[in-house]
């Protein structure tokens, strides 16, 4: 099946290797992967900050780029959910666009959800060895029901030991622009998340949303922890 990869702006800028890992996983599941070259950002930051006009502009751009594909996959629950759940609301005053948004919505997936439930990936190419702990990102968890999927994939790696942390489902304090509007509050929430994660003795904190991961990594480093790795699940599941 033909899958368009939405790389997400954070992956594009900060951690391109997550994008390549996602391609590798999708190909391992037998998908033909296309990466539309003109893609940029889904517009979530603008929408969450109340800028409907900016959000609508980017939503239309996204729809035009991706509506021709059978499936659209993003290595981020939050971005995938933004397209699925919010685009129809963003475009409510433009019925034509809204209809296109609705038509696209059900074909947009978060990466692990797609790998498990649609592509049914069997052989995971990763080679990670050691104890990890998994942070459930809020939107993926509560809006898309992503909980079992990443764990099922991790279970396919024989040398990965998953140790659940206390409060795995609690917010890490990132919240998109929340983290730059209220830096101190956000960092204090992240501190709690890091403490819970580190208490598991894991060598790596793994998650499915780069925003959360950058937040957690930034806090760990500020706390003086230079050794605990913070990885996107796609990185763990591939040989990257």
């Amino acid at each position: 099946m033909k899958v368009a990869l939405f790389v997400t702006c954070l992956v594009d800028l900060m951690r391109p290797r997550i994008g390549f890992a996602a391609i590798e996983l999708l190909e391992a599941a037998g998908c033909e992967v296309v990466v539309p070259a003109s893609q940029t950002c889904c517009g979530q930051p603008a929408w969450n900050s109340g800028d409907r006009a900016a959000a609508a502009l980017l939503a239309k751009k996204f729809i035009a780029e991706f509506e021709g594909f059978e499936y659209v996959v993003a290595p981020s629950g939050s971005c995938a959910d933004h397209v699925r759940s919010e685009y129809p609301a963003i475009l409510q005053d433009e019925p034509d666009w809204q209809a296109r948004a609705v038509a696209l919505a059900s074909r947009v997936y978060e990466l692990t959800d797609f790998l498990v439930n649609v592509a049914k990936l069997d052989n995971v190419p990763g080679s990670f060895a050691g104890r990890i702990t998994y942070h459930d990102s809020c939107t993926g968890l509560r809006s898309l029901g992503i909980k079992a999927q990443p764990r099922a994939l991790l279970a396919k790696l024989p040398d990965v030991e998953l140790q659940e942390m206390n409060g795995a489902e609690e917010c890490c304090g990132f919240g998109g622009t929340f983290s730059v509007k209220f830096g101190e509050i956000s960092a204090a929430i992240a501190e709690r998340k890091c403490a819970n994660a580190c208490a598991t003795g894991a060598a790596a904190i793994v998650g499915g949303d780069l925003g959360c991961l950058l937040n957690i990594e930034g806090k760990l480093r500020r706390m003086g922890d230079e050794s605990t790795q913070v990885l996107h699940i796609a990185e763990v599941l591939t040989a990257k």
Partner: protein
Amino acid sequence: MKLRAHRFKQNALEALANPVLQASMKKAKGKFVDKRAIAIKEIDDFEATREAAKEIRNRVIENLDLWLEKFEQAAAARGAHVLWAKDGAEICRLVVDIGRKHGVKKAVKSKSMLSEEAGLNLALEAAGIQPVETDLGEYILQINDNEPPSHIIAPVVHKSLDEVADLFQKTHHTPRKTDIPQLTREAREVLRQHFLSAEMGISGGNFLIAETGSVALVTNEGNGRMVTTLPRVHVVITGIEKVIPTLEDLATLMRLLPRSATGQSISNYVSVLTGTKAEGESDGPEHLYFILVDNGRAEVVGSEFQDMLRCIRCGACMNHCPVYQTIGGQAYGWVYPGPMGSVLTPLYTGLENAIDLPHAATLCNQCGVVCPVKIPLPDLLRKLREKQVERHLRPWFERLAFRLWAWVASRPALYGLGTRFAVRYLKWLADGKGSIPRLGLAPEWTRGRNFPTPEGRTFRELYAQRGRA
């Protein structure tokens, strides 16, 4: 209560720097969250009950005027006076008038958030009527120079035992004690005198029941019953949205309220109070007044924020909110803290007076998940943000930033060029290290954490290269 919501950021920083508050909040979080999780498992059809509760509340709010009229008729038929107040000032005026009419010198009070909205205690004092808070938490706040509450059901959740011990010693002139039962007994002894000598009792109301004209009170301390049945005069102050159709509806909502609030199957006391004392009855008030308050609520009816009026004030949203858990309730700067407060405060006091509150949430949606009446709190917060943008209330640089980002992001070539430079600049700034401790572009971010270093090339660059290779 004095509005301090415009100082949210500053309030939050003070809360973060307060070790007593931090320790207390940590303790409270575990208690509320864990106990609720256990209590909701007791009902098999929890989700269906939530849906039913939502429907009950919607049914009322969609025809609020009709249900209020029904309530008014039923309450009047049982000897109560139903009065209407449009704002806090009017609440104060009405209560003072009632007090004067009945020669009241002292009023005992059970918890009422509306009384906080109105700043009623100050008005009573000014009119020569002594207000005495009798909910233990509210009493502690009152003797601490009228400190504002930090939670709608646990007003002193931010305080430590030591602070309360000091306060009691100072106020009661008794030897300092730190045993909780002993402290509670001391408060009871002080309060008992007030119950017996007060001419007026003032309470809030968890629900007003339209079919019977009753008020339902849900409490864990016996004070609520004393306040409402001992004095000659009882004044109930509630928001107009608190009405529900029937006692059966009350039963449905009561399955959710204590479980969501304190994690109890049922609270220690549930009182349904109807009418004045009848002949031959030994207790109950001779005069019963209901003050039904608008204070911004009527305007929410029919608006895109109407869902908020379903709120039954359980506090579950704040108990589960990562932001509330971190800064406590006083930082929110008005009567209602946490996610529900971040919606209510701007709606009731004006968007411009609570500029930060709609943004003071990570939109993690845990509040929406735990809300017993399914209020879509994150959606409402986002809508408030949109209203602020429409009214140009947010700082110009913030509005510009999103416009600029959208403008660039809708031009792929420009976006590609800009991001290429940006990541190279960041990589250079990191100077070979894994993260950047101080970043001028995102000063707020690096106040409490480092900024991780980007790989140095964008995905689109690398992908284009790979394609050529």
